[in-house]
């Protein structure tokens, strides 16, 4: 289990992390979402030991993470990087060696992981002649080759075509199912929603909301979709307890606070015109995210 506890880090005048705390549990896929500059990458770099925090602690299995612990972490940085002129298998094997595997063991692990990411046929291809999507697969192979006991990936889905994304999702799920804590950041909230067991929303260097996808959705409060043949949305003005509204082609989604009466909303809608649809709506993660960002 990986725990980030009260991480603080500033770069000159910029506060990148402001007491960020987060737990990544074994066997769980944890999604890390937040606007650009929220501090996700800094938090991951500190978790991997590439950066030092000004304050706070990274714990692995309950005690401060050591270099030996970190040698067994797998990492895919946001700034992708590979040796352009190395062949795929050599490249992956080099990282296996950097993580302490030797000779035959490094070669075996390389062959196995290239199979997993679907690059076994490209083992002898020079890395810079691969398509970007396949280079990303090499990047994933590099993160996996030493059979890491923790996986941290910064925007692993960016730049992947749908097939590559499926491979990525499959690999991450498989690692989590094998009992490895897996954390990744993403801007694609639909991916996070579909894939993750838990989600942490980061804002201004802090986790502002976290929990399972279900928990976060419930936190979004009650929502009702109303489709009414009215000239405009002015009829909503008279209804008490509306905290937010969002119009799209299929009507308007109204967020209600806990005290609001949805029957009053229905009456107001009927008074405005014929009601074609009136139904409770599950908030999407994107809605929860937007609210967390606006709060």
């Amino acid at each position, binding site marked *: 289990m990986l725990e980030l506890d009260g991480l603080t880090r500033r770069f000159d005048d910029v506060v990148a992390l402001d007491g960020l705390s987060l737990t990544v549990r074994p066997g769980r896929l944890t999604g890390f979402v937040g606007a650009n500059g929220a501090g996700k990458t800094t938090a991951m*770099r500190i978790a*991997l*030991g*590439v*950066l*030092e925090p000004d304050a706070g602690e990274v714990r692995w299995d309950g005690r401060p993470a*050591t*270099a*030996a*612990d*970190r*040698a*067994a*972490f797998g*990492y895919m*940085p946001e*700034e*992708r*990087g*590979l*040796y*352009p*002129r*190395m062949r795929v298998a*050599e490249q992956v094997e*080099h*990282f296996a*060696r*950097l*993580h*302490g595997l030797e000779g035959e063991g490094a070669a075996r*692990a390389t062959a*196995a*992981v290239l199979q*997993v990411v679907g690059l076994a046929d490209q083992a002898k291809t020079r890395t810079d002649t691969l398509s970007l999507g396949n280079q990303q697969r090499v990047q994933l192979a*590099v993160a*996996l080759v030493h*059979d890491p*006991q923790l996986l941290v990936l910064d925007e692993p889905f960016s730049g992947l075509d749908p097939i590559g994304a499926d491979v990525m999702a499959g690999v991450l799920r498989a690692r989590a199912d*094998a*009992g*490895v804590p897996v954390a990744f950041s993403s801007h694609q909230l639909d991916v996070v929603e579909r894939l993750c067991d838990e989600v942490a929303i980061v804002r201004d260097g802090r986790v502002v909301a976290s929990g399972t996808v279900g928990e976060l959705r419930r936190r979004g409060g009650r929502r009702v979709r109303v489709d009414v043949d009215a000239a405009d949305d002015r009829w909503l003005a008279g209804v008490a307890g509306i905290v937010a509204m969002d119009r799209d082609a299929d009507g308007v989604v109204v967020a209600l606070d806990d005290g609001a009466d949805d029957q009053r909303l229905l009456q107001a809608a009927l008074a405005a015109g014929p009601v074609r649809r009136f139904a409770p709506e599950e908030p999407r993660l994107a809605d929860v995210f937007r609210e967390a960002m606006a709060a």
Partner: protein
Amino acid sequence: MTARQATDRRALRGWPAVRVVARREILQRARDRATAISTLVTLVLIAALVVLPKALGLGGDPKATVVAPAGPAAALARAAHDAQEPFGVRIVVRSVASEAAAQRAARDGDADVAIVRGGRALVVSRDAKDGAVAAVQAASRRARERAEPPPPLPQAVVGEEDASGLAFVVLLVLYGQLLAYGIVVASGVVEEKQSRIVELVLSAIRPRDLLAGKVLGIGVVGLGQLLVVGAVGIALSAAAGRLDVGGPGVVAALGIALGWFVLGYAMFACAYAIGGALVARQEELQTATTPITITIVGAFILSMSALSDPGSGLARVLSFVPPCTPLVLPVRQIAGDAPAAEVAAGVAVVLLAIAVLIAIAGRVYGNAVLRTGARVRLRAALRRA
């Protein structure tokens, strides 16, 4: 993939990590076309220097001067001149007033051979052309053949060996090699920084191990290239008759050059690594490394003074100024004017400089190498722990 036990997990630190990094550098660079091309270009240059003048008939046979006082000695000198053809030298005979004058000419290197004692002994200058000596001996043998099977005339070697040519070649090669491989280190550091791979590497090993492995790996390739160039250069020179390979001076010079390459490279490579770590792109590299390059060029120019006068006060002082030491001391050693104590002191000074630079480079590298945006100021990179 099965989960291994946590017990066989260990972080690579120190030598094991350095070795893995160095291995990659060596494999990549040994296979790199640029390495092969630069080796070839150097070899072609050496070959051109050594072989071409002879192949093109330029210069012809080397000139050799034989001096002798009038009398039987002068007659022998003329006989040697007449028999010079098979010996590959063009003998110039000069007559001198006395036997003492003849000896002096050989000692000062003005003459290759002085014929003395009425043609019964030779005084040979240390850097005399072998052909000249052989021609005189042969002429003497022929003159006395009728009497008895003649023993070769006794000959004594005098004067100082002229090693400045050898020292110059070593200086030139050392200078080129230090400059070239220092820049390879700097651009290798930037390459990793620019391709962002450094973050991935540093998630596995420590910055100083990455730095050390890089410097070591590139250094091994540089040393290997120096060995190849040195060996081929010596072989070519020997084949062209330009160099006496059997002479201890040549092998010693190669050893001295290799030793000072190792020390000088370690020193400059650290400096270049600092320069590389401070910039984000190859385009900015030149600006950041210019001070180091100027230092090496300056050291090279200053070292030229040691070439003409190895024993001068300037040369002795420069022997202990770290950027100059690896260029000045080998020149003085090869020219035969460096007491062992001064060499030892020079080595110590360079080792000290290396230790200081490694400490600085390790710190700067760790702090600056992950900053991929703008150029990092040296002071800022030193500050942040």
